[in-house]
């Protein structure tokens, strides 16, 4: 299906393409397909493509007097057939330690939600999450799919420092802090995996459209994996999904 899109000039050298204001996987795959089409067509001057929940930002390397021509080109491209557009989706198994050492808000959450800590961990780790895009911090994944029973409002006073790798819940969202950061989300675990490595050619292994599963691990396993990750030799489990 095709959506009714809006195209707006955003500054002197960007076009913002917007889908209807809905967060769902159909919209996500339509955005990714359009993004791939733009990449494959090698449109002159395009230097950057940034997708979010319901938008795609196309950044050009030149300042335009008018972006109208660029918008026309994009519109034409959107309505072209897209059966042959292929993109690889992967599913990643992310180890998470829900031990009390890291899960500093799990107790409070258990009381507030009237769920045992074990149930919270089970609910959190049995879901397959969808990566919508990366933003906020380098390597921070916007994930969709958190079980409603685990929705929990952000803390009234944000913490000044949240540990790198913290797995947390904020409102209807869950995510992993890829670096130390201030933040108001409720912390229920920690992952030893590095989600952002500035020294790699491609700094994130995850892409928009990928899937994530959190796999509970013990404190001992956490330490073992962390050692391997720090040495740069840990092999993360993943599988390619049929697109």
């Amino acid at each position, binding site marked *: 299906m095709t959506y009714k899109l809006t195209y*707006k*000039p*955003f*500054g*002197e050298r*960007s076009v*913002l393409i*917007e889908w209807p*204001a809905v*967060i769902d996987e159909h919209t996500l795959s339509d955005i990714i397909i359009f993004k791939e089409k733009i990449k494959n067509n090698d449109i002159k001057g395009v*230097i*950057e*493509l*940034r*997708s*979010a*929940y*319901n*938008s795609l*930002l196309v*950044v050009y390397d030149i*300042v335009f007097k008018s972006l109208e021509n660029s918008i026309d080109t994009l519109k034409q491209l959107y309505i072209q057939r897209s059966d042959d557009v292929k993109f690889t989706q992967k599913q990643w198994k992310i180890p998470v330690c829900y031990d009390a050492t890291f899960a500093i808000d799990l107790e409070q959450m258990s009381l507030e939600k009237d769920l045992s800590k074990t149930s919270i961990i089970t609910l959190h780790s049995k879901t397959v999450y969808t990566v919508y*895009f*990366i*933003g*906020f*911090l*380098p*390597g*921070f994944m*916007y994930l969709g799919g958190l079980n409603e029973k685990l929705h929990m409002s952000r803390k009234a006073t944000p913490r000044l420092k949240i540990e790198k790798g913290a797995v947390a819940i904020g409102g209807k969202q869950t995510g992993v802090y*890829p*670096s*130390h950061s201030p933040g108001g989300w409720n912390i229920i675990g920690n992952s030893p995996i590095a989600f*952002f490595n*500035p*020294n790699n050619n*491609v*700094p*994130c292994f995850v892409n*928009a459209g990928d899937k994530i599963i959190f796999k509970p691990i013990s404190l001992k396993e956490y330490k073992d994996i962390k050692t391997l990750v720090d040495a740069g030799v840990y092999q993360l489990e993943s599988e390619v999904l049929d697109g």
Partner: protein
Amino acid sequence: MVKVLKTGLYSTIQDLGRHGYQEYGVPYSGAMDIYSASMANVLLGNDANSATIEITMTGPTLEFNCETSICISGADLSPRLNESQIRLNKPISVKSGDIVSFGKLVSGFRSYLSVLGGFKTEKVMNSYSMYPGITKYAMLFKNMTLIIDTSLDGLDKNHAGIKVKNTHFTNKTMDVFKGPEFDKLSKKQQDLLFSQPFTISKDNNRMAYQLTESLENNLEPIITSSVLPGTIQLTPSGKLIILMRDCQTTGGYPRVLQLKESSINSLAQKITGDSIRFDLK
């Protein structure tokens, strides 16, 4: 090699930014005032993208341990070579043992010091621009040594230097375009954006400039979407926030206006308490 004897208030290495990594959540960074940073570079014969020192309000003291040329553009912080005042926007030869220091802030807010060939600090993702978590160091520190290329020949020593546009520093009018959510504002809100002056609050840094005046606001937050340097967001409390070079890649506040590139550069030279106006292009 250049040794940092004193850092100044907040000095960082900046080129024209880190491009092509925004889909991974990486900020652009880069010189706040690209016009002045490029000026400092091209006057030395450097590529405009060469790494400079971005100096904020008070300058560092630098000891040169080799022969090279420098050029300072942007804010006038009364630069000195040893005991003599030096001119802005003019290539200056320095010898081993020379000391470059700064004095009183005369105009503007950010100054750029370029060196022949650019500073060769840590380069990450195709950029020298410092940013916490991306580069090892987020700012210059006392006794830090900055590597420079000493194999390059200096320029014609009698280069005259040039006059820069004074309006770049004195202009109070910021050229803007409509932001993606501009049309969601009421007519009254739209008019208020252009009919009154706004003041730069003390909350201003490389990430964003918050303005003092509030606008009555009943807009809903938006679904998180892309933002750019120069994007002006309207927060639920009615405050306007102008995003700058180190801003995040995405945001959830309505994006009501977008600064023209040249106005981002001008704004980078403004200081707490300065008054600005928006002019719709």
